[in-house]
């Protein structure tokens, strides 16, 4: 006999689920409100009580990136992050391969030689990736300790001394940005979650984040996201006028159903080419249904248990 998990919309199980949901609503109130707020409701910097500040972010224009990796090195140097090792990956000129607990800026390379259109134009896509500082950040939603916050610049920030290393944020992030630190070359690590702070410490002193400061071609621009979004839209229009119909913004407004990013990109190819999700999932979308499903399963199992063990109990009495 095979046990079939109740699935939403699946006959009897669906009815069971719906009943459970109703029960849950009775107990804990209206479901959507009980779960983490949607991006529109994210606390704004002004809510911090201090002076009203603007939300700060990055605009990374990949059409200007020359792949020099100055951002990667400047980030490591400023934040004193260790090199992870010396691995020849063979991924074009990309040997750090991904964002991690100790690589907060990462330059991706994608060779498209003679593959594009009939003209056989060769391109070599280069893109400096970074934490997206989502306006509705799943990592922040997932954090059970309150370690992940929005700081006064509107940036997603991990408070290292509060993080307990549970790792919920790691699975929640749809971009694979945040990660727990692991030992490097035998040197132990705290196992806490780490990622780009948007150079919180530099911003607090009125300085530009290290990566943007070191970028020789202004591919990485730092500023208030309102300004950056306006600039980015203008930039796309300019590029299109020049005949570059491939240029578009990723995360300036929203990506699919996913809210806007405070660190957004100008791309020239499908997001997948840059290792970005076309439709990043918001893990808390449909969370109500998943909670309900869990309750339903629990209830179902309870009933089964009651049927099996309840009778036996009577017999035993």
């Amino acid at each position: 006999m095979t046990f079939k998990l109740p699935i939403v919309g699946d006959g009897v199980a669906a009815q069971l689920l719906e009943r459970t949901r109703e029960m849950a609503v009775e107990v804990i109130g209206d479901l959507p409100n009980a779960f983490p707020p949607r991006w529109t409701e994210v606390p704004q910097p002004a809510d911090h009580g201090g002076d009203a500040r603007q939300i700060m972010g990055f605009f990374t224009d990949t059409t200007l990136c020359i792949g020099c990796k100055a951002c990667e090195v400047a980030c490591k140097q400023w934040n004193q992050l260790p090199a992870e090792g010396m691995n020849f990956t063979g991924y074009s000129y990309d040997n750090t391969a991904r964002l991690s607990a100790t690589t907060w800026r990462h330059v991706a390379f994608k060779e498209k030689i003679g593959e594009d259109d009939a003209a056989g134009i060769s391109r070599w896509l280069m893109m400096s990736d970074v934490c997206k500082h989502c306006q509705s950040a799943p990592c922040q939603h997932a954090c059970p300790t309150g370690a992940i916050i929005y700081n006064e610049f509107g940036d997603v920030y991990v408070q290292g001394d509060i993080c307990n290393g549970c790792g919920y944020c790691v699975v929640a992030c749809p971009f694979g940005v945040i990660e727990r630190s692991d030992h490097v070359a035998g040197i132990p690590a705290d196992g806490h979650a780490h990622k780009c702070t948007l150079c919180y410490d530099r911003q607090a002193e009125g300085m530009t984040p290290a990566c943007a400061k070191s970028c020789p071609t202004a591919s990485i621009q730092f500023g208030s996201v309102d300004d950056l979004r306006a600039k980015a839209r203008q930039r796309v229009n300019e590029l299109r006028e020049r005949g570059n119909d491939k240029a578009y913004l990723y995360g300036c407004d929203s990506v699919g159903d996913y809210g806007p990013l405070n660190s957004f990109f100008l791309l020239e190819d499908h997001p997948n080419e840059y290792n970005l999700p076309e439709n990043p999932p918001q893990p808390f979308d449909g969370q109500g249904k998943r909670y309900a499903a869990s309750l339903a399963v629990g209830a179902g199992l309870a009933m089964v248990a009651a049927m099996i063990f309840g009778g036996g109990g009577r017999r035993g009495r």
Partner: protein
Amino acid sequence: MPGLGASFGRGAATGYQQDMANSDCILIMGSNMAEAHPVGFRWPMRAREKGAQLIHVDPHFSRTSAMCQTYVAVRAGGDIAFLGAIVNYILTNDKWFKEYVLAYTNAAIVVQEGYEDAEDLGGIFSGYEPETRSYNADKGRWGYAGSEADVCQRDARDGARGPVEQGLGGTGKTGSGQRETAATAEGTSQHGHGLMGLASGQTRNRAANIVPPPDGKIERDESLQHPRCVFQLLKKHFSRYTPETAAQICGCKPEEIIKVAELLCQNSGRERTSMIVYALGWTQHTTGVQTIRCAGIIQLLLGNMGRPGGGIMAMRGHSTIQGSTDIPTLYDSLPGYLPQPASIEQHRSLKAYCEFEGLAAGYWANTPKFMVSLLKAYYGDAATKENDFRYDWLPRIDGDYSQLPFFNSMAQGNVDGYFLFGQNPAAGGPNAGLHRAGLRQLKWLVVLDWFEIETACFWKNDPKGPPPGDVGTEVFFFPVPPITAKEGCFTNTQRLIQWHDRAVDPEEDCRSDLWFVWNLGRRLKELYAGSTRPQDQAIQALTWDYAYDEEPRLADGSVSRIENEPDAAKVLQEINGHSLVERDEKTGKRRLLRAFSECKDDGTTSCGGWIYSGVFPSYDRNRARERIVTKNPVQPNWGYAWPNNRRIMYNRASADPQGRPWSTRKQYIWWDEQAKRWVGPDEPDFEPAKPPDYRPPQGARGMAAIAGDQPFIMHPDGLGWLFAPATTKDGPFPTHYEPVESPVSNPLYKQEDNPTARYFQGPLNVIAHTPESEYPIIATTYRLTEHYLSGPMSRFNSWLNELQPAMFAEISPELAAERGIVHGGWCTIHSPRGTINARAMVTKRMKPLVIAGRTIHQIGLPFHWGFSGESVGSQTNDLIPIVADPNVSMHEAKAFTCDVRAGEVPQIEPKPNYPFAPWPVRGMVPQTPRSGQPEGQVGR
């Protein structure tokens, strides 16, 4: 000297990098600028964003190619054919800038009867002497018709060297260079160095071919119809360089060449300007100087010289390589491109030297002023008019002591000891195995460097070397701090002198290079203090007063703990020059010179490097230290550019012959009739008050011989040279020759390769002569952004090493399939000089070319690895042949032949001698709570 000097008069980049943003079209060829000069590359990017066209022509598709709208893949070594086809296109389609060419170039000048072109003689010009493998320009009749009357005096008088010509070219990276070898050579701190330069003293070319006798006149034909006028000769010379022929040589399509030519032509003229950018991809060939010459011809024909957004940017190979030829580390050159005296009759006395080296017309007529001022700077009061300013104390060169012949001699046991600053020949020298063989023969070697580079540990870590016990060299390694712990200045690719302060003291017992040299000199002076021998007088008299007047302080105001550190500002002041008779009003010290025009030949001024004069005009003003941003787009107060703070050289050409801007859009320097001066945002590279209609009187000499509409003031005729009547040693026109090692033969001429190339044959330097089936693949070398030259400043840093952790070879998928090489796996590369291992980077960015019906494979090799460091790997430079360009003795690293096989040779794979250190630097920020420490500190 080189290409730029022969074409324009000075061998240095003609403009400045920021000016690239003003260009309408930039051809990058022989340069991987986005990777090798990523910070400067912001300017081409800005030009692109303003609508300019960027073109990259290169054997491999690099990060630079990815940034350009147009990319053409070519065979390494086909550059002159490619550029020649552009010249052909310009002439055939009548696209040249007529007013400009007629007024500012030697197009109309008639060449002496008897000159024969390479077209007539199967690839050789008239005047070739096979026994010496060299040209005799006089015998070949390369001179201007009308200069013959002077021929008898010529030998006595002119060495026409283009003066500063050597500079650029000469040095290196850029160049035409004379010398650096950045690709292969390098340095860790700041110097470049000469690779091998031929002694310039004896080899200066004859410039008298250009100057008419006092009562004579150079023959011109303004209609350009005379069969021997330069324009007709040029047309004839390039008539067979059609796009089709060039495409055959380069392995590209004719349409691709035509497209590049069209883009250049469309973006040149009165309203628009195009720029050409090159680096070691052009210079490191046996035809490097002529390739640059060819670019010069294009820029002169299109009227792009001396104008904003135009010119030729020669990108230098490393920091202050320009400076190290200006104030040279070269054996054959004195500061300011004055030739080192040689043991030849023409240099027997100061007077003879000045007569021989100074030119009758043009700026070099001032040679005596610069030479006397230099001697006064060297020997102070001991140099007097009566004793010829102690000219006799200057060492005379009696042979070629440039890097290659010197190391060759070293390998034969002829050298006892060697001081080495900022260079790494054991890994960076061309044919590095030969360099290591030389080092093993030394008795002692002093290496000053930031890290224990290959040259400091060759005796124990070289996997190809003998056991350490068999090496007799005693190596003294002196740790030198990074630039943050020493002050001084750099001169960058655009001749810009920029000062840097000492931010902190060096750690522990590290001392600056300057400290070492000054204290070595002090000890030598002490050692010879009591000597009465005549040969010790020079060292006794040498001015060596660089001690600080007050305690030196660091940036934070604290007193430096370093004892006996010299005051670098005093060195720069000495280079700038002093008046020896006037006093500074404020300080009472000897007055500093305000410009090189103040130099005198009577012993009343001293000047250690005339071209830098003006950089320190008063004791409270070090212009190299200034960083003042103004509304003037040229930013004249940001650093100081020699000569005389001119940012674009030959800028008189930005105005028409009458002195009016060619167009409003491209105005730069023009004649102001009211003020009776040349005005504009930059310093005019011309006598500021010489009117456009000035005509030299008969028999005029010096600057008086340059007319008001002749912008190229370093040339005796004031003109840009389409035809080089002097200066180049391998012909007045660029000619396509195959690289010395090439798998294809020359379709244009019977003469396969450069007939004047220099060979250094020997068991350690075997050449695979053309064509050699054993080595069928073309190899070219280049740099990656992540590493620096042979890696002395990058392979000890894990933040850089993780970005490019292994030596690799870029191989096309087709070649990989043919040889069974797997992407990411190992392969070996073989040349007659050696074998190396590399990881295989199989990529479509390398592509096989079809040449003469055959598929020709090329591979690309970065040259950053060696056997010392945290990241180690085989040395590309072990493969490179030493064959030299005749002008500057540059070797040919950018096109040689090899073979590639799958697998590796484990015995030659070096082991890291420095452990992996995840944090190159690590330390808590002092006086800062834990919460304020960098994340990487807190997290671990």
